[in-house]
């Protein structure tokens, strides 16, 4: 009973057809409506721009991806730790969630300069912003996963007089894995966006800065080239996570009807 391959050939085909159709419609729409390039560039033009500036985009992507991944790991850890604390000490949920929502409600653009003041012009504030943007979905999802453990198994652990900690490690944690992966799939593209937002005005490199420059110059092909990269990297991360999930949650294979 092997996990269903994430990319079986038929799925790959249908994915290709859908994506191609979308780009074709977009291309046609732009051409038929004679949409000016400063409002919406045709995808062909975007892809051309991408290929004409590969090294520019490669460097920017490397920087942003690095920030995004480190920030994601931080945000993930923070969300995970908080969720764990809330499951081990359920009374704290109201207070901690209030603070989490307070942090989540603070626009990143408002605190980005403050972070720059404290942490300088380097990558650190970008990583922190990314972490702040990603921790919330992780917190909510893992908390739900940790709480929704099979009651029959919880009874078993209670009858064993397992400590909270043992119940957490041996029971709640593994059974929350599907929620963890959903959280990761939500957070991975979000981390990329977080890094981009962090770089938007205050960075000297990275996709975010490239995008900002492109946008303020109303150079939309450059802007969309970066968006395509973000989407491609996001999709890659998503597929990687789906692949990992199929292996990690091997005992519960999603099945079709």
């Amino acid at each position: 009973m092997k996990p269903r391959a994430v990319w079986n050939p038929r799925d790959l085909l249908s994915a290709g057809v859908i994506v191609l159709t979308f780009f074709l419609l977009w291309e046609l729409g732009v051409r038929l409506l004679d949409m000016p390039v400063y409002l919406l560039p045709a995808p062909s033009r975007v892809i051309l721009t991408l290929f004409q500036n590969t090294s520019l985009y490669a460097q920017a992507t490397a920087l942003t991806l690095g920030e995004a991944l480190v920030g994601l790991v931080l945000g993930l850890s923070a969300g995970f730790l908080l969720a764990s604390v809330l499951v081990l000490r359920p009374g704290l949920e109201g207070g901690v969630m209030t603070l989490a929502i307070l942090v989540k409600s603070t626009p990143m653009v408002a605190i980005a300069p403050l972070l720059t003041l404290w942490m300088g012009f380097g990558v650190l504030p970008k990583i922190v912003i990314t972490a702040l943007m990603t921790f919330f979905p992780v917190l909510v999802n893992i908390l739900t996963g940790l709480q929704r453990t099979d009651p029959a198994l919880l009874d078993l652990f209670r009858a064993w007089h397992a400590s909270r900690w043992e119940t957490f490690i041996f029971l709640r944690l593994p059974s929350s894995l599907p929620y963890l992966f959903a959280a990761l799939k939500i957070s991975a593209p979000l981390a990329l966006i977080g890094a981009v937002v962090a770089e938007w005005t205050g960075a000297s490199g990275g996709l975010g800065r490239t995008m900002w420059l492109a946008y303020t110059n109303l150079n939309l092909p450059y802007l969309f080239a970066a968006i395509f990269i973000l989407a491609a990297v996001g999709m890659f991360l998503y597929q990687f996570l789906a692949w990992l999930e199929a292996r990690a949650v091997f005992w519960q294979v999603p099945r079709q009807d």
Partner: protein
Amino acid sequence: MHLEIEQLSHTFAGRPPRAALAELSFAVPSGQFTAVIGPSGCGKSTLLRLAAGLLPVQEGSLRLGGQTPAQAGAQRRVAWMAQSPALLPWRTVRDNVLLALRFLPAGHAARLSADEALARVGLSDSANAYPFMLSGGMQQRLALARTLMLDAGLWLMDEPFAALDELTRERLTHELLDLWQAQRPTVLWVTHHIQEALRLADRVVVLSPRPARLILDLPVDLPRPRPESSPAFQALLSRLRAALGLAAAPAEEGA
């Protein structure tokens, strides 16, 4: 570990509330093997869950070796086997058994190794399989192996052989009596199988339909092993059948 149940009642909240136990009283001396029999839905599992500390005692009292279920449980001398197998799906068969070893009473070493326990229930070949690869009966045997690792003073067993065929039952009966005679834990053994009760137990307690009351308390003073064909066995069997027939006859709900 002796057991004292006095005027124990339990009612599940809800609309309408459901009374599961009604002023149930009986005592089990330390080391006694007591089978509990009663119609489906009468309150047997509820009784075991109360003893395992999984439900709060609402009315009356339930003492395990003079302690409350929570106190006794905290010393990990109480082993409970649920009616459904409750296996960890992400652990192999062996790892499911090994996990139980963490929950031995303080200072106790395991009496059996995990592999030995698996061998006794006939699961050696499946030690590296995952629970979802096991048949219903194999899952139940795994749950049994896991419970018997615990070296407890009280066994609370909820229909442990329900999913097993006669032959496997017979073989496991031997294994179980071996272990029981070596350790001499007190046993509450819920079963629907009247012969099984008579084969195993020192005493059979028969409960009424819901809410459970004691309707027969039958000592089984036969030396083991107990051939079913013996007249003594048959006499006890008839008494039990009669008690159950009477007990269950008028109820509409099978409970």
